[in-house]
């Protein structure tokens, strides 16, 4: 089996190399024969997918067959590993995850090459760029991180097992989502670079890549928050984001990708920011690769990092080469990107996008700076320093609040120019609503002058309210207009409005999701915790809850042994739940893992951790966290995903409406705004 996988990878490398070289030659020569050569390059690209898929399937089969003669399977699986995790073995380690990355890239390339008739020449350029990236990953897989490397010496009876932290249902879907996001940004980058090289006229490449970018952004968003949920549900420290370098690595391309999704509208509608968009697409792709470099090079220490290996150098060189290639083509063809920049007013949608992009890129830079600062410090001072949550919370939160303010303001601003009167009229009620939220919070006891985190929480709540009310008011206003024209009721009109401009109103739903997500986050300063050794019948109080230890016991199965406590949760005198915090000891990997148990409500999460047995008394130590509002983070993410889905739906046609009132009989005129 290992040989089949190895040959499949070699074949994939040969096919992608051919796709790149033949595709390049066909594009450069442009003679009658080059068209046929280009077609063979396209087909070789499609065949690459089949070859990489075969290699991936072989690796998964090996995992299910417990084929420990393959070193990768030995290191990341064992006989008693449940089936879903055996499947997840594909992306659980260095070599397998690179194979998975290559598979996803080949799959994206496969779809792209099938849809080439949309614009054969532009797609041919994009296909060549994707083939070049594919060649890099397949070189890695064949010569630096071979997933089918064979074990030396006698065959081990069982594998070393999967990392216990990864034996959790979300880990079966979190990495694929994240990788779909990372890898997916190769597609808009490929189109952008292709358009730059061929001096593609107009903005069609933007239209072609818009859906790709949104789908990719959606996957990355899912991946990031599945990771956050996994951290919350598995790591047992009661939080969901630790500003670890690897978490930061996933956030950076997300930030630039989000900036691109906004600024691209400037190019579509006004022909502006062509250079900036080109750089944003490149930066997003490059940061995705940089994230992989950080994870795998060992250059920055992280709890998530893969084992340190030589492939960091490969990624380093790849980053340099892609930067050099992009700079070369940008320098050569930059005149093609000249825009007709004309801004009529500071109070306009264009301005808000400029500031929004500034803040997104600044947030990305701040995180990049914080992630690399330990290394910079080592170079400058001879020793590393830690850049952890206190730094990011101080620096990134103000930027996030400003972004939230722009999220609220942006939809109220018209393209070209917004009159102050119109802004006041549209902004008044949402602003009053936000002020009311602030007032209620202060009356409820939030004193922003006592602690900076309370100030941030208050501001975040007010701005989240502002964003939500802005979105609601936009739906109502648009719905009323349609209702007046079509005679439908307001709700039906709002649904119709959504169908008429799915991108715009899907975007507003995403904004609303972000506001809900922020509401979930602002509970953090009010977190509480308690810890106690609990014997039979012992009690511990936390907030409105009383925890009573009913029992504690042990259990064994083939994969792990576990210790767990049975904790009754009382609110007042009434028992409302029973939770079973657990600690597992995995046999194959000889590693321990806590499994927190969470009672989640809209108001707060009660989060229990079994910390271990006191060796002196034999009684369990239970740590309890009371985390307000956390559920709203996950609700907000779902809303963001729904909004992204809505934005991907094609627009519906306008409803039959009453004849439009005749304006003024006059020759064609301009100047009445947008």
């Amino acid at each position, binding site marked *: 089996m290992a040989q089949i996988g190895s040959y499949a990878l070699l074949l994939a490398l040969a096919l992608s190399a051919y796709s790149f070289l033949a595709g390049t030659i066909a594009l450069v020569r442009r003679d009658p024969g080059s068209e046929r050569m280009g077609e063979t390059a396209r087909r070789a690209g499609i065949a690459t997918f089949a070859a990489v898929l075969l290699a991936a399937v072989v690796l998964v089969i090996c995992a299910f067959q417990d084929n420990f003669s393959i070193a990768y399977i030995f290191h990341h699986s064992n006989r008693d590993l449940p089936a879903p995790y055996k499947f997840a073995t594909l992306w659980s380690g260095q070599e397998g995850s690179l194979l998975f990355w290559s598979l996803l890239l080949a799959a994206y390339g496969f779809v792209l090459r099938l849809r080439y008739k949309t614009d054969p020449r532009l797609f041919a350029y994009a296909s060549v760029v994707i083939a070049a990236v594919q060649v890099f990953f397949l070189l890695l897989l064949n010569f630096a991180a071979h997933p089918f490397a064979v074990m030396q010496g006698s065959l081990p009876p069982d594998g070393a097992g999967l990392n216990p932290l990864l034996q959790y249902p979300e880990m079966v879907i979190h990495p694929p989502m994240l990788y779909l996001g990372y890898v997916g940004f190769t597609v808009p980058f490929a189109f952008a670079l292709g358009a730059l090289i061929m001096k593609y006229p107009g903005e069609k490449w933007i239209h072609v890549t818009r859906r790709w970018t949104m789908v990719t952004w959606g996957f990355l968003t899912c991946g990031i928050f599945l990771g956050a949920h996994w951290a919350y549900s598995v790591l047992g*420290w009661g939080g969901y984001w*630790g500003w670890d370098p690897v978490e930061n690595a996933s956030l950076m391309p997300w930030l630039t990708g989000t900036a691109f999704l906004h600024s691209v509208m400037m190019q579509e509608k006004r022909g502006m920011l062509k250079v900036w968009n080109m750089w944003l697409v490149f930066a997003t792709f490059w940061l995705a690769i940089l994230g992989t470099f950080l994870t795998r090079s060992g250059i920055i220490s992280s709890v998530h990092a893969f084992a340190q290996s030589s492939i960091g150098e490969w990624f380093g060189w790849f980053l340099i080469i892609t930067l050099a290639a992009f700079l070369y083509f940008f320098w050569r063809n930059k005149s093609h990107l000249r825009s007709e920049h004309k801004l009529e007013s500071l109070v306009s949608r264009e301005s808000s996008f400029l500031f929004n992009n500034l803040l997104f890129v600044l947030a990305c830079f701040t995180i990049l700076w914080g992630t690399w600062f330990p290394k910079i410090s080592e170079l400058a001072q001879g020793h590393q320093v830690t850049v952890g949550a206190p730094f990011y919370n101080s620096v990134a939160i103000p930027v996030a609040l400003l972004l939230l303010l722009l999220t609220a303001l942006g939809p109220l601003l018209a393209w070209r120019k917004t009159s102050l009167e119109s802004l006041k009229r549209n902004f008044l009620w949402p602003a009053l609503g936000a002020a009311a939220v602030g007032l209620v919070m202060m009356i409820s006891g939030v004193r922003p002058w006592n602690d900076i985190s309370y100030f941030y929480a208050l501001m975040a709540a007010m701005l989240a309210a502002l964003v939500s009310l802005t979105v609601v008011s936009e739906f109502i206003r648009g719905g009323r207009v349609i209702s007046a024209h079509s005679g439908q009721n307001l709700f039906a009109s709002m649904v119709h409005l959504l169908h008429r401009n799915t991108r715009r109103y899907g975007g507003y739903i995403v904004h609303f999701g972000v506001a809900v997500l922020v509401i979930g986050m602002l509970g953090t300063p009010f977190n509480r915790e308690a810890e106690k050794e609990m014997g039979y019948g012992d009690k511990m109080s936390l907030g409105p809850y009383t925890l009573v230890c009913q029992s504690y016991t042990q259990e064994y199965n083939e994969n792990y042994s576990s210790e767990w406590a049975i904790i009754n949760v009382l609110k007042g005198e009434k028992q409302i739940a029973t939770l079973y915090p657990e600690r597992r000891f995995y046999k194959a990997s000889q590693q321990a893992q806590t499994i927190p148990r969470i009672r989640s409500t809209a108001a707060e999460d009660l989060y229990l951790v079994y910390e271990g047995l006191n060796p002196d008394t034999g009684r369990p130590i239970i740590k309890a966290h009371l985390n307000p509002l956390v559920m709203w983070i996950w609700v907000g993410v779902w809303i963001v995903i729904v909004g992204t889905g809505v934005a991907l739906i094609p627009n519906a046609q306008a409803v039959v409406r009453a004849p439009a009132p005749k304006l003024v009989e006059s020759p064609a005129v301009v100047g009445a705004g947008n």
Partner: protein
Amino acid sequence: MQCGFLCLAIFILIGSGDEAARFDHLGHQLMCICGCRQILLECNHVGCPDSDGMRNELMAAVSRGDSDSLVSQAFVQKYGPTVLAAPTNTGFNRTAWIVPFVALGFGLMTVVFIVRAWRSRPAPALAEDLRPVRGADLEQFRAQARKETEL
């Protein structure tokens, strides 16, 4: 005057008496040094060889009434500079804090410069059969658009 002294006394008493809050605050400014890369008070992995001892040291220092800076210095001396969860605001470490704000200032200046430059550009010429609408006509169009769209 008396009121002022009373406020000052309350402020000082609250500040010195709240050991648990200080412990919590300082414990979130320090890292566990076992390699887990977690904040000291959030380190939860079973059998951690370091976090319990570090917490006890921190509790002892807070109980003694050591100032925040003294506690930090003691931990840095014992465990090295990576024990602090964020760079200090001294020496080269200060650049960690300054650079993001310098970038913000630079970015803002750039955006303002761009906006001003773009605003000062002349409007593109209109086609021959088009004439700009101004004055009362423009207001009439605006009013009609507002009425029909409520925007």
